[in-house]
Protein backbone atom coordinates (compact mmCIF):
# COMPACT_ATOMS: atom_id res chain seq x y z
CA UNK A 1 0.00 0.00 0.00
CA UNK A 2 1.29 3.43 -0.96
CA UNK A 3 -0.33 6.16 1.03
CA UNK A 4 0.11 9.87 0.28
CA UNK A 5 -1.25 12.05 3.06
CA UNK A 6 -1.78 15.82 2.76
CA UNK A 7 1.43 16.20 0.79
CA UNK A 8 2.69 19.58 -0.38
CA UNK A 9 6.06 20.15 -2.02
CA UNK A 10 8.12 22.86 -3.64
CA UNK A 11 11.68 22.71 -4.92
CA UNK A 12 14.28 24.67 -2.95
CA UNK A 13 14.64 28.25 -4.17
CA UNK A 14 11.31 28.30 -6.00
CA UNK A 15 8.34 30.36 -4.85
CA UNK A 16 5.39 28.12 -5.65
CA UNK A 17 4.26 24.62 -4.80
CA UNK A 18 4.65 21.82 -7.32
CA UNK A 19 2.22 19.72 -5.27
CA UNK A 20 -0.47 21.07 -2.96
CA UNK A 21 -2.33 19.00 -0.41
CA UNK A 22 -2.25 15.72 -2.33
CA UNK A 23 -4.03 12.69 -0.86
CA UNK A 24 -3.83 9.34 -2.57
CA UNK A 25 -4.16 5.69 -1.54
CA UNK A 26 -2.81 2.99 -3.85
CA UNK A 27 -3.63 -0.53 -2.69
CA UNK A 28 -1.49 -3.60 -3.38
CA UNK A 29 -2.36 -5.00 -6.79
CA UNK A 30 -3.77 -1.68 -8.06
CA UNK A 31 -2.97 -0.49 -11.55
CA UNK A 32 -2.92 3.30 -11.60
CA UNK A 33 -2.08 5.80 -14.35
CA UNK A 34 -1.04 9.24 -13.16
CA UNK A 35 -1.84 11.70 -15.92
CA UNK A 36 -1.85 15.45 -16.38
CA UNK A 37 -0.22 18.30 -18.29
CA UNK A 38 3.55 18.85 -18.59
CA UNK A 39 4.63 20.29 -15.25
CA UNK A 40 1.53 19.07 -13.36
CA UNK A 41 3.71 17.43 -10.69
CA UNK A 42 3.41 13.78 -11.79
CA UNK A 43 7.11 12.90 -11.68
CA UNK A 44 7.59 14.85 -8.44
CA UNK A 45 4.81 12.81 -6.86
CA UNK A 46 6.21 9.40 -7.83
CA UNK A 47 9.73 10.36 -6.73
CA UNK A 48 8.26 10.46 -3.21
CA UNK A 49 7.26 6.80 -3.41
CA UNK A 50 10.87 5.63 -3.02
CA UNK A 51 12.07 8.55 -0.93
CA UNK A 52 14.02 10.36 -3.68
CA UNK A 53 12.03 13.41 -2.59
CA UNK A 54 10.46 14.09 0.79
CA UNK A 55 7.32 16.21 1.19
CA UNK A 56 7.60 19.67 2.75
CA UNK A 57 4.27 19.02 4.45
CA UNK A 58 2.41 15.76 5.02
CA UNK A 59 3.87 12.30 4.62
CA UNK A 60 4.15 9.31 2.31
CA UNK A 61 3.91 5.79 3.73
CA UNK A 62 4.86 2.60 1.89
CA UNK A 63 3.43 -0.56 3.45
CA UNK A 64 2.69 1.38 6.62
CA UNK A 65 6.19 2.86 7.07
CA UNK A 66 6.85 6.57 6.67
CA UNK A 67 9.40 7.08 3.87
CA UNK A 68 11.38 9.40 6.18
CA UNK A 69 12.25 6.40 8.33
CA UNK A 70 14.06 4.48 5.57
CA UNK A 71 16.90 5.19 3.17
CA UNK A 72 16.28 5.41 -0.59
CA UNK A 73 18.28 2.18 -0.95
CA UNK A 74 16.01 0.37 1.53
CA UNK A 75 12.84 1.75 -0.06
CA UNK A 76 14.03 0.89 -3.56
CA UNK A 77 14.01 -2.79 -2.67
CA UNK A 78 10.21 -2.55 -2.46
CA UNK A 79 9.52 0.36 -4.82
CA UNK A 80 11.15 0.07 -8.24
CA UNK A 81 11.15 3.41 -10.04
CA UNK A 82 11.93 3.44 -13.76
CA UNK A 83 12.95 6.89 -14.95
CA UNK A 84 11.53 8.67 -17.96
CA UNK A 85 14.94 9.03 -19.60
CA UNK A 86 16.78 5.67 -19.63
CA UNK A 87 20.11 7.48 -20.02
CA UNK A 88 19.70 8.75 -16.44
CA UNK A 89 19.76 5.16 -15.28
CA UNK A 90 22.00 3.09 -17.57
CA UNK A 91 25.75 2.92 -17.08
CA UNK A 92 27.08 -0.64 -17.55
CA UNK A 93 29.05 -1.88 -20.55
CA UNK A 94 26.64 -4.64 -21.52
CA UNK A 95 22.93 -5.22 -21.07
CA UNK A 96 23.69 -8.35 -19.10
CA UNK A 97 25.91 -6.43 -16.63
CA UNK A 98 23.28 -3.71 -16.36
CA UNK A 99 20.64 -6.29 -15.44
CA UNK A 100 22.81 -8.16 -12.93
CA UNK A 101 24.26 -5.10 -11.17
CA UNK A 102 21.51 -4.59 -8.60
CA UNK A 103 21.16 -8.31 -7.94
CA UNK A 104 24.86 -8.53 -7.07
CA UNK A 105 24.43 -5.55 -4.75
CA UNK A 106 21.51 -7.26 -3.07
CA UNK A 107 23.73 -10.35 -2.58
CA UNK A 108 21.93 -12.88 -4.79
CA UNK A 109 23.71 -16.12 -5.85
CA UNK A 110 25.25 -16.11 -9.33
CA UNK A 111 22.96 -18.98 -10.32
CA UNK A 112 19.85 -16.98 -9.35
CA UNK A 113 21.23 -13.87 -11.06
CA UNK A 114 21.76 -15.78 -14.29
CA UNK A 115 18.26 -17.23 -14.23
CA UNK A 116 16.59 -13.93 -13.46
CA UNK A 117 18.53 -12.04 -16.13
CA UNK A 118 17.57 -14.66 -18.71
CA UNK A 119 13.90 -14.54 -17.70
CA UNK A 120 13.57 -10.77 -17.77
CA UNK A 121 15.51 -10.44 -21.05
CA UNK A 122 13.15 -12.89 -22.71
CA UNK A 123 10.05 -11.26 -21.24
CA UNK A 124 11.05 -7.83 -22.56
CA UNK A 125 12.39 -8.99 -25.92
CA UNK A 126 15.98 -8.13 -25.05
CA UNK A 127 17.52 -11.60 -25.25
CA UNK A 128 19.35 -10.88 -28.50
CA UNK A 129 21.04 -7.84 -26.97
CA UNK A 130 22.34 -9.22 -23.65
CA UNK A 131 25.96 -8.95 -24.70
CA UNK A 132 25.54 -5.57 -26.47
CA UNK A 133 26.28 -2.19 -24.96
CA UNK A 134 23.04 -0.47 -23.91
CA UNK A 135 24.32 2.66 -25.64
CA UNK A 136 24.23 1.25 -29.17
CA UNK A 137 20.57 0.28 -28.81
CA UNK A 138 17.68 2.40 -30.09
CA UNK A 139 15.83 4.74 -27.70
CA UNK A 140 12.93 2.29 -27.36
CA UNK A 141 15.28 -0.61 -26.67
CA UNK A 142 17.25 1.37 -24.01
CA UNK A 143 13.94 2.16 -22.36
CA UNK A 144 13.22 -1.57 -22.09
CA UNK A 145 16.68 -2.23 -20.66
CA UNK A 146 16.00 0.38 -17.95
CA UNK A 147 12.69 -1.30 -17.18
CA UNK A 148 14.28 -4.76 -17.07
CA UNK A 149 17.07 -3.52 -14.77
CA UNK A 150 14.46 -2.65 -12.13
CA UNK A 151 12.03 -5.52 -12.67
CA UNK A 152 14.85 -8.05 -12.36
CA UNK A 153 15.00 -7.59 -8.58
CA UNK A 154 11.26 -8.17 -8.34
CA UNK A 155 10.11 -5.12 -6.35
CA UNK A 156 6.63 -5.26 -4.86
CA UNK A 157 5.55 -1.87 -6.22
CA UNK A 158 6.58 -0.81 -9.72
CA UNK A 159 6.50 2.79 -10.88
CA UNK A 160 7.19 3.57 -14.54
CA UNK A 161 7.63 7.14 -15.73
CA UNK A 162 6.44 7.41 -19.36
CA UNK A 163 7.07 3.75 -20.26
CA UNK A 164 5.59 3.98 -23.78
CA UNK A 165 7.82 6.74 -25.17
CA UNK A 166 9.70 5.50 -28.23
CA UNK A 167 7.91 2.13 -28.17
CA UNK A 168 6.19 0.87 -31.29
CA UNK A 169 2.75 -0.68 -31.19
CA UNK A 170 3.94 -4.27 -30.72
CA UNK A 171 6.20 -3.27 -27.84
CA UNK A 172 3.36 -1.36 -26.21
CA UNK A 173 1.18 -4.42 -26.58
CA UNK A 174 3.90 -6.52 -24.97
CA UNK A 175 4.24 -3.95 -22.16
CA UNK A 176 0.47 -4.07 -21.61
CA UNK A 177 0.52 -7.86 -21.32
CA UNK A 178 3.50 -7.65 -19.01
CA UNK A 179 1.70 -5.18 -16.74
CA UNK A 180 -1.31 -7.53 -16.61
CA UNK A 181 1.06 -10.31 -15.59
CA UNK A 182 2.59 -8.15 -12.82
CA UNK A 183 -0.82 -7.19 -11.46
CA UNK A 184 -1.95 -10.79 -11.47
CA UNK A 185 1.08 -11.55 -9.29
CA UNK A 186 -0.32 -9.03 -6.80
CA UNK A 187 2.15 -6.27 -7.60
CA UNK A 188 1.21 -2.62 -7.63
CA UNK A 189 1.85 -0.91 -10.97
CA UNK A 190 1.86 2.87 -11.27
CA UNK A 191 2.55 4.49 -14.63
CA UNK A 192 3.05 8.17 -15.32
CA UNK A 193 1.94 8.76 -18.88
CA UNK A 194 0.59 11.12 -21.52
CA UNK A 195 -0.34 8.26 -23.78
CA UNK A 196 -4.15 8.39 -23.78
CA UNK A 197 -4.44 5.67 -26.42
CA UNK A 198 -2.33 3.27 -24.34
CA UNK A 199 -4.39 4.06 -21.24
CA UNK A 200 -7.63 3.59 -23.23
CA UNK A 201 -6.48 0.05 -24.06
CA UNK A 202 -5.19 -0.85 -20.56
CA UNK A 203 -8.04 0.80 -18.63
CA UNK A 204 -6.30 1.45 -15.30
CA UNK A 205 -7.61 3.67 -12.55
CA UNK A 206 -6.61 7.23 -13.51
CA UNK A 207 -5.37 9.85 -11.07
CA UNK A 208 -5.50 13.16 -12.88
CA UNK A 209 -3.18 15.91 -11.71
CA UNK A 210 -3.34 19.52 -12.79
CA UNK A 211 -1.17 22.31 -11.42
CA UNK A 212 -0.10 20.17 -8.47
CA UNK A 213 -3.49 19.02 -7.25
CA UNK A 214 -5.58 15.95 -7.95
CA UNK A 215 -8.57 17.02 -10.01
CA UNK A 216 -10.02 13.56 -10.63
CA UNK A 217 -9.52 9.98 -9.49
CA UNK A 218 -11.70 7.43 -11.27
CA UNK A 219 -11.84 4.67 -13.87
CA UNK A 220 -10.31 5.27 -17.32
CA UNK A 221 -13.70 5.10 -19.01
CA UNK A 222 -15.17 7.73 -16.68
CA UNK A 223 -12.26 10.17 -16.98
CA UNK A 224 -11.27 9.81 -20.64
CA UNK A 225 -14.84 10.44 -21.81
CA UNK A 226 -15.20 13.62 -19.76
CA UNK A 227 -14.11 16.37 -22.10
CA UNK A 228 -14.16 19.16 -19.55
CA UNK A 229 -11.85 17.41 -17.14
CA UNK A 230 -9.58 16.00 -19.86
CA UNK A 231 -9.12 19.48 -21.35
CA UNK A 232 -8.23 20.95 -17.94
CA UNK A 233 -5.30 18.53 -17.75
CA UNK A 234 -4.13 19.25 -21.35
CA UNK A 235 -5.13 15.78 -22.47
CA UNK A 236 -7.38 14.91 -25.37
CA UNK A 237 -10.08 12.27 -25.49
CA UNK A 238 -8.96 9.00 -27.12
CA UNK A 239 -9.96 8.87 -30.81
CA UNK A 240 -12.67 6.30 -30.19
CA UNK A 241 -14.26 8.28 -27.33
CA UNK A 242 -14.22 11.35 -29.58
CA UNK A 243 -15.79 9.37 -32.44
CA UNK A 244 -18.65 8.04 -30.31
CA UNK A 245 -19.21 11.55 -28.99
CA UNK A 246 -19.39 12.96 -32.54
CA UNK A 247 -21.75 10.31 -33.97
CA UNK A 248 -25.14 11.90 -34.64
CA UNK A 249 -27.17 9.12 -33.02
CA UNK A 250 -29.27 8.89 -29.90
CA UNK A 251 -28.88 6.60 -26.90
CA UNK A 252 -25.14 6.07 -27.13
CA UNK A 253 -23.13 4.67 -24.27
CA UNK A 254 -20.91 7.25 -22.58
CA UNK A 255 -18.10 4.95 -21.47
CA UNK A 256 -16.57 3.59 -24.70
CA UNK A 257 -12.87 4.40 -25.07
CA UNK A 258 -11.37 1.60 -27.19
CA UNK A 259 -11.92 0.04 -30.61
CA UNK A 260 -13.27 -3.26 -29.22
CA UNK A 261 -15.95 -1.51 -27.18
CA UNK A 262 -16.87 0.65 -30.18
CA UNK A 263 -17.04 -2.39 -32.46
CA UNK A 264 -19.41 -4.24 -30.14
CA UNK A 265 -21.71 -1.24 -29.80
CA UNK A 266 -21.70 -0.40 -33.52
CA UNK A 267 -22.18 -4.01 -34.61
CA UNK A 268 -25.32 -4.28 -32.48
CA UNK A 269 -26.64 -1.01 -33.93
CA UNK A 270 -25.69 -1.80 -37.51
CA UNK A 271 -27.16 -5.33 -37.44
CA UNK A 272 -30.55 -3.70 -36.92
CA UNK A 273 -30.06 -1.50 -39.99
CA UNK A 274 -28.20 -3.99 -42.22
CA UNK A 275 -29.70 -7.34 -41.10
CA UNK A 276 -28.24 -9.33 -44.01
CA UNK A 277 -24.55 -8.62 -43.37
CA UNK A 278 -22.40 -11.64 -42.75
CA UNK A 279 -19.13 -11.79 -40.87
CA UNK A 280 -16.13 -12.19 -43.17
CA UNK A 281 -13.96 -15.07 -42.06
CA UNK A 282 -10.17 -15.02 -42.18
Amino acid at each position, binding site marked *: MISVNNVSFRYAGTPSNVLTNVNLQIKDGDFVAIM*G*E*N*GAGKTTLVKMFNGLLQPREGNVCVDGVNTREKSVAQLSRDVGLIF*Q*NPDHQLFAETVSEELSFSLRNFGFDEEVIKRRVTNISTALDLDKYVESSPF*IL*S*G*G*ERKRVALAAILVWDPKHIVMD*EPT*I*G*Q*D*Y*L*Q*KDRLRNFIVQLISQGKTVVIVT*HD*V*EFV*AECKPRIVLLSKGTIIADNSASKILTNNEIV*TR*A*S*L*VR*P*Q*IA*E*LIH*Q*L*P*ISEKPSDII*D*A*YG*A*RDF*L*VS*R*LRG*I*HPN*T*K*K*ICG
Partner: protein
Amino acid sequence: MPAISTRDLTFTYAGANAPSMESVSLSVEKGEFVILTGPSGCGKTTFCRCLNGLIPNFYSGELRGDIFVDEVNVSEKSTAELSRHIGFVFQNPENQLFSLSVERDVAFGLENLGVPEEEALARVKWAMKSTGIENLRNKAPYELSGGQQQRAAIAGVLAMKPNIIVLDEPTSFLDPKSAEDIIGVIAQLNREYRITTILVEHRLDIVSRYANRVIIMDQGKVVLDGAPSEVYGDKARLIGIGLPKVTTLFQMLRREGFPLYTNPITVEQASGELSKVLQK
Protein backbone atom coordinates in the same frame (compact mmCIF):
# COMPACT_ATOMS: atom_id res chain seq x y z
CA MET B 1 14.97 17.77 -58.89
CA PRO B 2 13.36 16.24 -55.80
CA ALA B 3 14.07 17.62 -52.31
CA ILE B 4 15.49 14.27 -51.22
CA SER B 5 16.62 11.48 -53.45
CA THR B 6 18.37 8.26 -52.43
CA ARG B 7 19.44 5.29 -54.50
CA ASP B 8 20.25 1.88 -53.03
CA LEU B 9 21.19 3.42 -49.71
CA THR B 10 22.65 0.75 -47.41
CA PHE B 11 24.38 1.23 -44.08
CA THR B 12 25.99 -1.17 -41.65
CA TYR B 13 27.10 0.23 -38.27
CA ALA B 14 30.70 -0.55 -37.33
CA GLY B 15 30.76 -3.82 -35.43
CA ALA B 16 27.26 -4.89 -36.54
CA ASN B 17 26.77 -8.11 -38.48
CA ALA B 18 23.94 -6.96 -40.69
CA PRO B 19 22.94 -3.67 -42.32
CA SER B 20 20.53 -1.47 -40.35
CA MET B 21 19.23 -0.08 -43.62
CA GLU B 22 19.24 -1.86 -46.93
CA SER B 23 18.74 -0.70 -50.53
CA VAL B 24 16.56 2.28 -49.71
CA SER B 25 15.65 4.15 -52.90
CA LEU B 26 13.32 7.07 -52.28
CA SER B 27 12.36 10.35 -53.80
CA VAL B 28 10.62 13.10 -51.81
CA GLU B 29 9.33 16.14 -53.70
CA LYS B 30 9.57 19.71 -52.44
CA GLY B 31 6.78 20.64 -50.04
CA GLU B 32 5.76 17.09 -49.18
CA PHE B 33 4.75 16.22 -45.61
CA VAL B 34 5.99 12.68 -45.08
CA ILE B 35 5.53 10.49 -42.01
CA LEU B 36 8.30 7.93 -41.62
CA THR B 37 7.33 5.11 -39.29
CA GLY B 38 7.99 1.47 -38.52
CA PRO B 39 8.77 -0.85 -35.61
CA SER B 40 11.62 -0.01 -33.19
CA GLY B 41 14.97 -0.67 -34.84
CA CYS B 42 13.51 -0.68 -38.39
CA GLY B 43 16.12 1.76 -39.69
CA LYS B 44 14.18 5.02 -39.70
CA THR B 45 16.62 6.92 -37.47
CA THR B 46 19.52 5.50 -39.50
CA PHE B 47 17.89 6.83 -42.67
CA CYS B 48 17.47 10.30 -41.13
CA ARG B 49 21.09 10.34 -39.94
CA CYS B 50 22.19 9.86 -43.55
CA LEU B 51 20.25 12.90 -44.72
CA ASN B 52 22.51 15.42 -42.99
CA GLY B 53 25.70 13.41 -43.09
CA LEU B 54 25.68 12.37 -39.41
CA ILE B 55 26.21 9.02 -41.09
CA PRO B 56 29.04 8.50 -41.98
CA ASN B 57 30.66 11.64 -40.44
CA PHE B 58 29.75 10.89 -36.81
CA TYR B 59 28.57 7.29 -36.85
CA SER B 60 31.14 5.01 -38.41
CA GLY B 61 30.28 2.07 -40.58
CA GLU B 62 29.93 1.11 -44.20
CA LEU B 63 27.70 3.36 -46.31
CA ARG B 64 26.80 2.46 -49.88
CA GLY B 65 24.51 4.12 -52.41
CA ASP B 66 23.80 7.74 -53.35
CA ILE B 67 22.02 10.50 -51.51
CA PHE B 68 21.08 13.97 -52.71
CA VAL B 69 19.44 16.56 -50.45
CA ASP B 70 18.28 19.87 -51.88
CA GLU B 71 20.35 19.14 -55.01
CA VAL B 72 23.47 18.66 -52.91
CA ASN B 73 25.42 15.42 -52.90
CA VAL B 74 25.55 14.72 -49.16
CA SER B 75 28.82 12.81 -49.36
CA GLU B 76 30.58 15.96 -50.60
CA LYS B 77 29.50 18.28 -47.76
CA SER B 78 30.04 18.51 -44.02
CA THR B 79 27.12 18.22 -41.58
CA ALA B 80 27.60 21.93 -40.75
CA GLU B 81 27.27 22.93 -44.41
CA LEU B 82 24.25 20.69 -44.83
CA SER B 83 22.49 22.47 -41.95
CA ARG B 84 21.70 25.32 -44.39
CA HIS B 85 19.64 22.88 -46.40
CA ILE B 86 18.21 20.49 -43.85
CA GLY B 87 17.28 21.10 -40.21
CA PHE B 88 16.89 18.51 -37.46
CA VAL B 89 14.57 18.55 -34.45
CA PHE B 90 15.09 15.79 -31.91
CA GLN B 91 12.85 13.94 -29.47
CA ASN B 92 14.12 15.76 -26.42
CA PRO B 93 14.50 19.53 -26.83
CA GLU B 94 16.81 19.64 -23.80
CA ASN B 95 19.47 18.11 -26.05
CA GLN B 96 19.20 21.05 -28.40
CA LEU B 97 18.87 24.09 -26.10
CA PHE B 98 21.80 25.36 -24.08
CA SER B 99 21.95 29.20 -24.16
CA LEU B 100 20.83 31.50 -21.39
CA SER B 101 17.90 32.91 -23.32
CA VAL B 102 15.54 31.59 -25.96
CA GLU B 103 16.55 34.38 -28.33
CA ARG B 104 20.24 33.46 -28.05
CA ASP B 105 19.41 29.84 -28.67
CA VAL B 106 17.39 30.61 -31.78
CA ALA B 107 20.25 32.84 -33.04
CA PHE B 108 23.03 30.35 -32.29
CA GLY B 109 23.10 28.53 -35.63
CA LEU B 110 22.96 31.79 -37.59
CA GLU B 111 25.93 33.22 -35.71
CA ASN B 112 27.88 30.10 -36.54
CA LEU B 113 27.01 30.49 -40.20
CA GLY B 114 28.24 34.10 -40.13
CA VAL B 115 24.91 35.57 -41.21
CA PRO B 116 25.08 39.43 -41.04
CA GLU B 117 23.60 40.80 -37.81
CA GLU B 118 20.69 42.65 -39.35
CA GLU B 119 19.53 39.64 -41.32
CA ALA B 120 20.12 37.35 -38.35
CA LEU B 121 17.91 39.53 -36.13
CA ALA B 122 15.14 39.56 -38.73
CA ARG B 123 15.31 35.77 -39.12
CA VAL B 124 15.27 35.18 -35.36
CA LYS B 125 12.23 37.42 -35.01
CA TRP B 126 10.47 35.64 -37.87
CA ALA B 127 11.30 32.17 -36.52
CA MET B 128 10.04 33.04 -33.03
CA LYS B 129 6.86 34.56 -34.47
CA SER B 130 6.22 31.55 -36.70
CA THR B 131 6.46 29.19 -33.74
CA GLY B 132 4.50 31.45 -31.36
CA ILE B 133 7.26 32.11 -28.81
CA GLU B 134 7.91 35.86 -29.27
CA ASN B 135 6.85 36.49 -25.68
CA LEU B 136 9.46 34.03 -24.38
CA ARG B 137 12.50 35.69 -25.98
CA ASN B 138 14.23 36.58 -22.70
CA LYS B 139 13.39 33.42 -20.80
CA ALA B 140 15.99 30.75 -20.08
CA PRO B 141 15.19 27.43 -21.78
CA TYR B 142 14.97 25.67 -18.40
CA GLU B 143 12.15 28.04 -17.38
CA LEU B 144 9.98 26.80 -20.24
CA SER B 145 7.48 23.96 -20.36
CA GLY B 146 8.28 20.95 -22.57
CA GLY B 147 6.03 22.25 -25.34
CA GLN B 148 7.62 25.70 -25.23
CA GLN B 149 11.11 24.14 -25.32
CA GLN B 150 10.21 22.13 -28.39
CA ARG B 151 8.88 25.27 -30.08
CA ALA B 152 12.19 27.00 -29.27
CA ALA B 153 14.12 24.06 -30.77
CA ILE B 154 12.00 24.25 -33.93
CA ALA B 155 12.53 28.04 -34.09
CA GLY B 156 16.32 27.51 -33.91
CA VAL B 157 16.13 25.17 -36.88
CA LEU B 158 13.69 27.41 -38.75
CA ALA B 159 15.95 30.46 -38.42
CA MET B 160 18.46 28.66 -40.63
CA LYS B 161 15.77 28.75 -43.34
CA PRO B 162 16.29 25.14 -44.37
CA ASN B 163 14.25 23.83 -47.30
CA ILE B 164 13.82 20.53 -45.46
CA ILE B 165 13.05 19.75 -41.81
CA VAL B 166 13.45 16.31 -40.25
CA LEU B 167 11.73 15.78 -36.90
CA ASP B 168 12.48 12.64 -34.90
CA GLU B 169 9.49 12.00 -32.60
CA PRO B 170 9.30 15.68 -31.61
CA THR B 171 6.22 15.29 -29.42
CA SER B 172 6.96 12.18 -27.40
CA PHE B 173 7.73 14.07 -24.17
CA LEU B 174 4.73 16.35 -24.52
CA ASP B 175 1.19 16.11 -23.19
CA PRO B 176 -1.39 15.47 -25.93
CA LYS B 177 -2.58 19.07 -26.11
CA SER B 178 0.99 20.42 -26.46
CA ALA B 179 1.74 17.63 -28.97
CA GLU B 180 -1.21 18.66 -31.13
CA ASP B 181 -0.12 22.30 -30.94
CA ILE B 182 3.44 21.48 -32.04
CA ILE B 183 2.29 19.29 -34.92
CA GLY B 184 -0.05 22.13 -35.90
CA VAL B 185 2.91 24.56 -35.99
CA ILE B 186 4.92 22.13 -38.13
CA ALA B 187 2.01 21.61 -40.53
CA GLN B 188 1.53 25.36 -40.83
CA LEU B 189 5.22 25.89 -41.68
CA ASN B 190 4.96 23.11 -44.26
CA ARG B 191 1.93 24.77 -45.88
CA GLU B 192 3.03 28.40 -45.72
CA TYR B 193 6.69 28.06 -46.68
CA ARG B 194 6.57 24.71 -48.52
CA ILE B 195 9.24 23.33 -46.21
CA THR B 196 9.64 19.66 -47.05
CA THR B 197 8.85 17.82 -43.83
CA ILE B 198 9.96 14.36 -42.74
CA LEU B 199 8.31 13.43 -39.46
CA VAL B 200 9.40 10.26 -37.66
CA GLU B 201 6.45 9.24 -35.48
CA HIS B 202 4.71 6.33 -33.79
CA ARG B 203 1.69 8.42 -32.74
CA LEU B 204 -0.18 8.17 -36.02
CA ASP B 205 -3.49 9.16 -34.38
CA ILE B 206 -2.22 12.70 -33.92
CA VAL B 207 -0.13 13.28 -37.04
CA SER B 208 -1.76 11.43 -39.94
CA ARG B 209 -4.22 14.16 -40.85
CA TYR B 210 -1.38 16.47 -41.93
CA ALA B 211 0.66 14.09 -44.07
CA ASN B 212 0.25 13.54 -47.79
CA ARG B 213 2.45 10.45 -47.62
CA VAL B 214 3.45 7.71 -45.19
CA ILE B 215 6.60 5.63 -45.60
CA ILE B 216 6.79 2.47 -43.49
CA MET B 217 10.11 0.74 -42.92
CA ASP B 218 10.62 -2.74 -41.54
CA GLN B 219 13.91 -4.57 -41.01
CA GLY B 220 15.90 -1.87 -42.77
CA LYS B 221 13.74 -1.69 -45.88
CA VAL B 222 10.90 0.46 -47.17
CA VAL B 223 7.89 -1.85 -47.23
CA LEU B 224 4.98 0.55 -47.77
CA ASP B 225 4.85 4.00 -49.33
CA GLY B 226 1.73 6.00 -50.21
CA ALA B 227 -1.13 8.20 -48.99
CA PRO B 228 -2.13 7.43 -45.36
CA SER B 229 -5.49 5.93 -46.32
CA GLU B 230 -3.79 3.59 -48.83
CA VAL B 231 -0.95 2.54 -46.54
CA TYR B 232 -2.98 1.94 -43.36
CA GLY B 233 -4.21 -1.54 -44.24
CA ASP B 234 -3.77 -5.10 -43.08
CA LYS B 235 -0.12 -5.28 -44.12
CA ALA B 236 0.77 -2.28 -41.93
CA ARG B 237 -1.21 -3.77 -39.05
CA LEU B 238 0.58 -7.10 -39.34
CA ILE B 239 4.00 -5.41 -39.26
CA GLY B 240 2.92 -3.98 -35.94
CA ILE B 241 2.20 -0.38 -36.89
CA GLY B 242 -0.09 1.36 -34.39
CA LEU B 243 -2.72 2.55 -36.86
CA PRO B 244 -5.09 5.36 -35.87
CA LYS B 245 -7.83 3.80 -33.76
CA VAL B 246 -10.59 4.89 -36.15
CA THR B 247 -8.77 3.08 -38.98
CA THR B 248 -8.54 -0.06 -36.81
CA LEU B 249 -12.25 0.20 -35.94
CA PHE B 250 -13.21 0.36 -39.62
CA GLN B 251 -11.08 -2.72 -40.35
CA MET B 252 -12.94 -4.55 -37.57
CA LEU B 253 -16.35 -3.45 -38.87
CA ARG B 254 -15.46 -4.51 -42.42
CA ARG B 255 -14.60 -7.96 -41.09
CA GLU B 256 -18.12 -8.03 -39.63
CA GLY B 257 -19.40 -7.50 -43.18
CA PHE B 258 -20.52 -3.86 -43.04
CA PRO B 259 -20.24 -1.71 -46.17
CA LEU B 260 -17.44 0.65 -45.09
CA TYR B 261 -15.11 1.00 -48.02
CA THR B 262 -12.82 3.85 -46.99
CA ASN B 263 -9.93 3.96 -44.53
CA PRO B 264 -10.62 6.97 -42.30
CA ILE B 265 -7.61 8.76 -40.82
CA THR B 266 -9.44 11.27 -38.66
CA VAL B 267 -12.40 11.16 -36.29
CA GLU B 268 -14.29 13.52 -38.61
CA GLN B 269 -13.88 11.20 -41.62
CA ALA B 270 -14.89 8.16 -39.54
CA SER B 271 -17.90 9.94 -38.10
CA GLY B 272 -19.02 11.06 -41.58
CA GLU B 273 -18.80 7.54 -43.04
CA LEU B 274 -20.46 5.87 -40.05
CA SER B 275 -23.29 8.41 -40.08
CA LYS B 276 -24.15 7.29 -43.62
CA VAL B 277 -24.38 3.57 -42.79
CA LEU B 278 -26.15 4.22 -39.49
CA GLN B 279 -28.93 6.08 -41.30
CA LYS B 280 -29.58 3.56 -44.08
